[in-house]
């Protein structure tokens, strides 16, 4: 069944406390080469049929208006997976 994948990330210039906490834990475990961690979301929209251009446009609209908040997040990628 095809899926529309929406990926959302916290804005680059904003503090990502979740990513920071994970980075701190990795540093404690000795992974000194990992300089930063940022954590976003992957949202799968499952659909019945292969998405058309119109479906993707609608998904983009949903992604911008509801799945992400433009003040704090960016939609970084929308793609289709089978």
């Amino acid at each position, binding site marked *: 069944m095809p899926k529309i994948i929406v990926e959302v990330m916290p804005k680059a210039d*904003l*503090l990502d*406390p*979740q990513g*920071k*906490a994970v980075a701190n834990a990795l540093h404690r475990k000795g992974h000194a080469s990992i300089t930063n961690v940022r954590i976003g979301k992957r949202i799968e929209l499952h659909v019945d049929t292969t998405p058309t251009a119109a479906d993707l446009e609608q998904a983009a609209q949903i992604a911008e208006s*509801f*799945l992400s*908040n433009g*003040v*704090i997040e960016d939609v970084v990628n929308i793609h289709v997976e089978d």
Partner: protein
Amino acid sequence: MKIGVVTFPGTLDDRDAARAVRIAGAEVVPLWHADANLLKVDAVVLPGGFSYGDYLRCGAIAAQAPVTQAIVNAAKGGLPVLGICNGFQVLVESHLLPGGLIRNEHQHFICRDQRLRVENVDTAWTNQYQLGEEITIPLKNAEGGYIASEETLKRLEGEGLIAFRYIDGNPNGSMNDIAGLRNERGNVVGLMPHPEHAVEAGFGPDGAAAMRSGLDGLKIFESVIKAVVNA
């Protein structure tokens, strides 16, 4: 005088908000998230809690609820709306107020009595305070860090749209120490701290006179009664 108090799945402070409304002298009308009927209320309180488990983003799913859509439309027509904590997050996600609320800078849930300065008294919810009045009400949240673009912050400061500011220390990294906002018309106010927990002696923050004597939140609810009566 009827004031609606909304309950979403996961709302916590609806009963406390209802109690504050009653103590201030108005009748409480419970409003249910799935029902778009506002039952002819004169004002609405969106209380605190964790609506829809804070899924997606705090307040994001509640912003799409049928009752919220009705509230947004009514607010645009002038209905007084107060958002407390999660209710403030709902107002921001509904675009009734600008900006966003993110995880506290120090990453911890915070629960303490918080000092605030009332920065604007020309609203339906703050007209009983003195401009610049310093008050103490409880603050309890994990996602209370207010952020907005530089342009938005400039507008908020320039147009007097900041209703409350944190004083004696910024508890969560909020930009410009913003604790609460008002809209242009002054009918919509949102704040992270909880005025409904400071309305009755014996249950409020510690005051100078006695423990738990703080009543600084009551004027929020008295303000809206005044605003509706005078409207």
